[in-house]
């Protein structure tokens, strides 16, 4: 008896059309006239397959442009693959950029609710968790302030707190675990540990090999859009660091 994997990536290829100039009607008309296109295909991921069992923490490493971030966008359902299929079982929460899509002119509380709801919570659930989110981010006193007046560190803390309190089955994280000051970082690591203990699946894209080593049992190394190595973190990192 085996559980179906939380994430099943089957022969996924992703190509982008790269437009060399900002799109405009004039450009489109000229291209049509000259029978020439300024659009070119770029392969970001080339025939990738792997599975992630529920409860595993997977690190993804590789140089810039190797396809790591594209993979996260595909797992989150933001992009569609060009070929192949991705099956994701469970609620996905993303932590893909520092500002987490928050609006400068909304208060911390309002931003937290909108972001939590785009992560699949109902409004009632979001409201119920709001105090926890604010407290974890040490922002309870600033709940009703617009985030325009927040420091970068405060915004990042808010984004992280919301994401980890959305009760995800699968958490997709891009490079942002190292946020805030020392004590908040320790808190983040502790919270990630709790999620792991609760059987959540975590996909963690990072350049910070120490954090990958500390967090992930398994690591995948991407190189030039292809899967270079997939195995226990210690082995993959040893090969990567050579």
């Amino acid at each position, binding site marked *: 008896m085996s559980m179906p994997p939380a994430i099943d990536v089957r022969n996924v290829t992703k190509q982008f059309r790269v437009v060399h100039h900002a799109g405009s*009607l004039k450009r489109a008309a000229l291209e049509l006239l000259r029978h020439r296109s300024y659009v070119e295909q770029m392969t970001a991921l080339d025939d990738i397959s792997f599975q992630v069992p529920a409860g595993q923490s997977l690190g993804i490493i590789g140089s810039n442009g190797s396809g790591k971030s594209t993979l996260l966008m595909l797992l989150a359902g933001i992009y569609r693959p060009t070929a192949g299929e991705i099956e994701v079982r469970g609620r*996905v929460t993303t932590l893909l*950029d520092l500002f987490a899509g928050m609006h400068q002119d909304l208060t911390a509380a309002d931003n937290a609710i909108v972001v939590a709801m*785009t992560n699949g919570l109902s409004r009632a659930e979001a409201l119920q968790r709001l105090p926890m989110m604010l407290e974890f981010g040490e922002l309870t006193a600033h709940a009703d302030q617009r985030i325009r007046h927040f420091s970068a560190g405060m915004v990042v803390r808010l984004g992280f707190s919301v994401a980890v309190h959305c009760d995800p089955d699968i958490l997709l994280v891009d490079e942002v675990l190292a946020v805030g000051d020392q004590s908040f970082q320790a808190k983040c690591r502790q919270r990630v540990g709790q999620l792991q203990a609760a059987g959540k699946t975590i996909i963690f894209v990072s350049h910070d090999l120490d954090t990958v080593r500390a967090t992930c049992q398994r690591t995948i190394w991407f190189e030039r859009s292809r899967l270079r190595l997939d195995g226990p973190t210690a082995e993959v990192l040893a090969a990567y660091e050579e």
Partner: protein
Amino acid sequence: MVNSPRRPPLRATLRELWAYRELVTEFTRRILMVRYKNSVLGLVWSLITPLVLIGVITLITKYFLGQPIPNYSAYIFPVMFAWTFSNNAIPDMCISLLENSLLIRRSYFPRELLPISALLAALFHFLIGLVLSLGYLMLLRIFPQQVGWSVLLVLLIIPCHLCLLLGLGLITAVLNVIYEDIRFLVSVGLQIMFYALPVMYPIERVAAVEGQPWLLPAYLANPFAGLLVLYQKAMLPPIQSAGHPALPFSWPLLGQTWLVSLLVLWFGLWYFNRLKYVAVERL
């Protein structure tokens, strides 16, 4: 959730939109909160532009443009709010994807929600304008003395108006991500269309043009013109102008405008569904 190259069928997209209805409300609230973040007068500002225009047009028609029509300001009141609704909603929907690119690139939700909530925020202002219009008509003793229950016909007109706007909003929103000059075309198009609408002049003037029998049907084939005429005929007593008898409320016109609006909406939903992933990659 399975993510594959296959495009989701339109029916699945519609079902998903219904499932996400709570988020639409939240996005709409967000738009309104951001707009009124720190202005004391808040809502009043959104009503000032149409009110000033109504005043100006009333003066122009009274003193410059031919025979004055009694109570013409009452005729402009509801149509001006209806036109302002279109004129605000379409550009707002048009930029809704581009404006929220950070939110889109962060998590998955049906992208249609963004133009839909831009439309609902604009509808909120329009409804306030309609209530104001009704108040003005009561002040002039037009409602309920001269116009009675026919006012309720607006309940058949507003949904039609929404369908038309949403269809156009979806098309322009997704195109505006791919070609950023679409929003300029949209604003020019709306400015020009203002003159092809019965605001500065009553529809009876168009009907009174002699020797051009095609003119009125062609004029009313524009669903925006059809909608304004329908609003006027539902909310106002017959107008005396230009020697042409007042046109009554026309059920065929309502049917025709509904048909066009539903076609535009269907095309908008289909086109958006077809291009939304391409658009997201360009954000």
